[in-house]
């Protein structure tokens, strides 16, 4: 009897807490806040401390050197090149992802035979482990044994007297411009499925009565796209872009596997350079300082995009 009374009073107390927004909000947010503090906040704080010190992989003691490490990082021409490459790599690949994602989303929003296999193929790059997928691309883009080159040679587009040049191969990862193009291509291929899925969700969220009104008014495809569909999808496109930018800015797998930042550091980005300098080279302070440069950019991008999304939503 006492036990039942105790259980009833406990239920009442829990119900009381759950009914009060001042309690429920913090309780629901707590796991997320804890996660961010432990797995994001703490490493971020450590990165700041490291970048103000002369720490190395072999000597974890923190001797503060002020801004000396950051100054050394900024003066390094490879860092400057990496910073530039990071922006170009992110902007170009995200522009491609947005445009191609939108096209695929429109295609997927219509009904046609074999749609499921089309959808499966589009999602495949996202479900394949990225290291494995990038190694496959490494073989595809091999300087000597590339099957793409083989097909181009078979079509008489590559080789002596062919329009793409007399060499037997294009050397996808051996020429700076082609190497940069290749890493953008692979990264776009990898990011496209998620962007497509997000945009399909955005398309389906457009109310049917608006679509019907557009059809009744006889708006052309392009007019409906630019004046109705895209404006209504802007908030969700902004989220897709934000996710893509942050992911691209901080990721190093594609470049690490394909080029390791080469040739001549032309595909080096901040994340790979931080790894080579800080972990492989042992200069942990400079590695941390390099990685820190990602933060203000990402913060700025996040604020801008979220503000834009909010405005678009309100409008």
């Amino acid at each position, binding site marked *: 009897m006492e036990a039942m009374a105790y259980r009833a009073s406990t239920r009442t107390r829990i119900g009381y807490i759950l009914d009060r927004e001042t309690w429920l909000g913090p309780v629901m947010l707590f796991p997320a806040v804890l996660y961010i503090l432990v797995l994001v906040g703490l490493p971020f704080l450590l990165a700041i401390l490291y970048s103000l010190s*002369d720490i*190395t*992989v*072999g*000597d*974890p*003691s923190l001797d503060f050197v002020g801004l000396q490490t950051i100054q*050394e990082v900024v*003066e*390094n*021409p*490879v860092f400057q090149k990496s910073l530039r490459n990071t922006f170009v790599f992110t902007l170009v690949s995200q522009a491609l992802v947005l445009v191609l994602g939108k096209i695929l989303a429109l295609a997927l929003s219509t009904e046609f035979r074999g749609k499921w296999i089309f959808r499966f193929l589009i999602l495949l790059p996202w479900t394949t482990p990225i290291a494995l997928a990038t190694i496959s691309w*490494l073989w595809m883009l*091999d*300087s*000597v*044994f590339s099957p793409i080159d083989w097909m181009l040679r078979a079509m008489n587009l590559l080789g002596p007297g062919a329009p793409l040049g007399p*060499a037997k*191969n294009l*050397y*996808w*990862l*051996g*020429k*700076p411009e082609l*190497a940069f193009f290749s890493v953008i291509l692979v990264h776009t291929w990898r990011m496209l499925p998620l962007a497509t899925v997000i945009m399909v969700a955005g398309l389906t969220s457009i109310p049917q009565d608006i679509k019907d009104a557009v059809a009744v008014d006889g708006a052309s495809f392009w007019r409906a796209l630019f004046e109705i569909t895209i404006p209504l999808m802007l908030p969700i496109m902004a989220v897709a872009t934000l996710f893509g930018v942050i992911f691209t800015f901080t990721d190093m797998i594609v470049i690490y596997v394909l*080029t*390791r*930042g*080469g*040739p*001549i*550091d032309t595909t080096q980005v901040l994340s790979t350079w931080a*790894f*080579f*300098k800080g*972990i*492989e*080279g*042992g*200069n*942990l302070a*400079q590695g941390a300082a390099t990685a820190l440069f990602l933060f203000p950019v990402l913060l700025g991008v996040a604020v801008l995009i979220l503000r834009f999304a909010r405005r678009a939503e309100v409008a």
Partner: protein
Amino acid sequence: MKDKKKQSIFSRRDFLKGAGTLGVAFGAGPILAACTPAVAPIPTPVGVVPTPTVPRLSGELKILVWSHFVPRYDEWFDAFAKDWGAENGVTVTVDHIGLAELRSRTAAEISAEEGHDIIELLDPPADFEPSVLDLTDLNQEAVNRFGPQVALCTRSTFNPTTNVFYGFCHGWVPDPGDYRKSLWEQVGFPNGPSTWEELLEGGAQIKEQLGVQMGIGMSNEIDSNMAGRAILWSFGASIQDENENVVINSPEAVAAVEYMVQLFQRAMTDEVFSWTAASNNQLLIAGQASYILNSVSAYRSAQKAQPEIADDVFFTPSLTGPGGIGLASEHVIPISIIPKFVQNPDAAKEFLLHLVANYDKAVFESELYNFPAFFSTAPNLLREGGWLDDDPFRSNPRNKLDVLKTAEQWSTNIGYPGPANAAEGEIFATFVIPNMFAKAARGELSPADAVAEAESLINPIFAKWRAEGLVGGGS
């Protein structure tokens, strides 16, 4: 430190006993081989040399090593380590990871102050010195037992600035030139090139007449780093001098870069800028390379995948430059460190001594990839009629690898003519040298400007590590 030393020292008599057992155990192998036809099963060294008077050990020993290029080596090593543990009351665990993950894993364990008792890296781990045990006692004991260590091994584990042995080197891997005999015969070099000038002359003719390029990488990876250093050294240039002062900006370095520009333009293709650690193997096996710089691993792969190509592959020692100097970098160098956090350093040291005592077996199981740091421990390798004269892994002809008998004379350490150090390590990891050559080869910078730019990247790295107290020079 002295106490530890006392525990580990064994009498010379014990060592002689061990060496005698080694001789008896391995003596039978070559005799049997001599009595059997060429297709006989591969003779393997048998028996294990016991470590003399091992002190009482207990507890756990966790070992982290790379996944060897030769899988059978890993199988042998795992069983060897566990057998030693069983005999000495130590529970041994061996973990293998990929070569590329070794440094990041080590950094993580050092940072967490938790992990393996022995970590075997494949490049000089000089930057880890503050967090690892000074292994002077172990190195001295090894010299007492096994005789002198190969100089490049000592220079890759000893820091003369701090007077500390930060690692223990049990072996090293030579990096000869591999050439396709049938191609070089056609351009008048039946024994392959012997100088860098001949490499340029013959390689250019082969590419022009036979359409086969050569492959010396200029990319962000390990083989390109080693090739670039070999060319610098052979032209009389180096990154640092013997006292760890930066001397890269020299007429000799500019001449080396000018040479590489010629070599690229006349004998290579753009693939060398996308070179990876696997490129040597791929190209050699596909018959698409007239010359590469590699350990025997590429050749061993060819033996298994394309025996007819392997039969056509022969080896050269390091090519000589204009001054008659010819030096190659060790290909990789297995160096063990014992982090300061470990609970069982005595077991770790005893195991490493036991490994060295049995290095004949290690050399064999690696298919002659590993060379010993103490030549006395692998007598079957160099002796007249030994494995390099009569390859147990069926080279055709059987003495194809005999060029490696002199490998110690033409191989050196990263950092030559000085010691390996943390600054040289960071320069290696950030690909300064391959990019110096590549920028000139692609015409982005003149050779002189490429060298000057490399110097501007190298100087701050040396300054950083000097400030850490780990690198000398700078006066």
